[in-house]
């Protein structure tokens, strides 16, 4: 029993990291109806930036801030330079462009920073936490981080005029533009925010699995599963989905399939959600007028 509790708790911790990346995916999906396959690789690159900043002598927390800011700016740049051109393109073309970014950024990470595994320190320090039993300080820190991100996101989307404009852009870009909302810039801003949230996920994963150019590929698959489970158009669904997936992964990994099948488990969840619950837990069923 104690083991089940322990696995569940650490599942929540790892799940909150999946939730983070899933939120990033959903933020972009909501505004553009496209899935950003390059989200994980963009995040990995930001984690390398943090490590580079530490190497320059910055304290870890400041390096993390630098990395998140870097992600924010580079996310906006990528939207302006590349993604912008594919807004009216077909889904296929868009995903091909994302795959190009995916392997491009992946090889850039490898080219600049090398392909070897690098140890990455946790912002929350090593060792166990004094607050929650069974969990390390890093795991507690991950959960708290996601709660903070969810809170900030809620405040931003529901209680600021910029957030309102952003929801309008997601809801109905044409009438938002007619009401004077700068839709183009909000889309750019959305990519920036998503990239920043993704970078946080990478900073939380890196201390657990070591940093290498392919670090986020496995996490991305779990984030896909989380976003689908929660409903692709719901940020809160992404958080719920992420945490559920983390718990399922831990329990199933220990008792059902074994740890060597974790990626296959993600595949199984994705296919199951598509079959049984295509709009996700908190997603909206949409009917389109044609």
């Amino acid at each position, binding site marked *: 029993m104690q083991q089940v509790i322990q696995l569940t708790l650490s599942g929540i911790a790892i799940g909150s990291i999946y939730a983070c990346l899933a939120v990033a995916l959903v933020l972009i999906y909501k505004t553009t109806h496209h899935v950003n396959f390059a989200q994980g690789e963009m995040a990995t690159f930001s984690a390398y930036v943090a490590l580079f900043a530490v190497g320059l002598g910055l304290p870890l927390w400041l390096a993390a801030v630098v990395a998140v800011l870097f992600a924010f700016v580079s996310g906006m740049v990528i939207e302006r330079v590349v993604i912008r051109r594919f807004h009216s393109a077909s889904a296929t073309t868009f995903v091909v462009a994302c795959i190009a970014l995916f392997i491009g950024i992946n090889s850039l990470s*490898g080219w600049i920073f090398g392909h070897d595994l690098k140890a990455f320190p946790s912002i929350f320090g090593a060792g166990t936490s004094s607050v929650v039993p069974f969990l390390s300080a890093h795991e507690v820190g991950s959960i708290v981080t996601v709660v903070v991100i969810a809170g900030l996101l809620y405040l931003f989307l529901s209680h600021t005029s910029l957030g309102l404009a952003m929801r309008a852009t997601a809801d109905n870009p044409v009438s938002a533009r007619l009401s004077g909302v700068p839709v183009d810039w909000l889309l750019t801003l959305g990519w920036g925010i998503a990239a920043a949230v993704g970078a946080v996920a990478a900073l939380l994963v890196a201390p657990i699995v070591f940093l290498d150019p392919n670090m986020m590929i496995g996490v991305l698959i779990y984030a896909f599963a989380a976003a689908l489970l929660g409903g692709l158009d719901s940020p809160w669904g992404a958080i719920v989905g992420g945490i559920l997936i983390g718990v399922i992964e831990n329990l199933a990994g220990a008792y059902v399939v074994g740890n060597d*099948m974790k990626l296959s488990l993600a595949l199984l969840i994705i296919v199951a959600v598509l079959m049984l619950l295509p709009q996700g837990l908190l997603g909206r069923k949409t009917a389109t007028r044609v």
Partner: protein
Amino acid sequence: MQTPNSSSRRIGALLIVAAIALLVALPMLVKGFFLFQITMVLCMALAVMGLNIVVGYGGQLSLGHGAVFAIGAYVAAVGMDSFALHWLPAVVIAGLVCLAFGVLFGWPSLRLKGHHLALATFALALAMPQILKHRSIETWTGGVQGVMVFNSPVPDWLPLSREVFVFYLVLAVVLIAFFGTAALFRSRMGRAIIAVKENQIAAASMGVNVTRTKLATFALSCLLTGLAGALYTLITEYVSPDSFDLMKSILLLVAVMVGGAGTILGPLVGAVFIQFVPNLAEQVSQSATSAIYAGFLLIMVFFMPTGVVGFVRGLLIRLRARR
């Protein structure tokens, strides 16, 4: 779509006949490693033809055709190794298994609109090496080690070496698939596939069953790519799980885009590209190959959405108009 006039059609037919004649004579001209490379190009071209059906004609995106290729390769390898099958039934069974897999895997994601096939196949591509290595099927798949296939596919009455026989076998399958797909897209079924890509609602109102057509497209493409996988086993006599990773799937996608999505000749051009570019690029850096692929993908979607073949075709049409 331009309808070429009869003289240019005749030139095209002549070129194709010349190319086939050259390929048939090839084993007499080249030997050894170069012949092996050409055989691999043809094999990859078959796999790319499969993906092209789904991406170029069907308008759906599969990021997991490397995994389908792996299933074809493994079914053939296990059939010949563990069950001592003759190569012909092994290859046929591999193709049929991939066809069935296409139906089963495509069904949950293809009845939904949007990115779901891309998402699900992306996960499939990532999971495939793990699945192939799994303990429960290790007696057949050999786990991390993979499967070695020792058998001589050459019939006794043929005075051909193994390499040359496999080359002609692959060439024959590629030619059948090439003319088969060309005929398909002139038939009712092929027109329905393109109609679904262009406008689902319009297609549905014309009496096309959209979901079934999408499913048939995906299954057919899995059949071709699976057959390519089975032929790959015959060519290399060895399969290992880690050679079928995500990059394999992306490679096939690169080939479709570079050659020209939705063109009949595109897969051949794309296959040449992915076979020879890595050899050149790896002299620069380990990361160079994927960086080049990334660059080419972006160039293609930005400037040449119909790939090299579409670009050349457009150029020819413009030249003729000027004359």
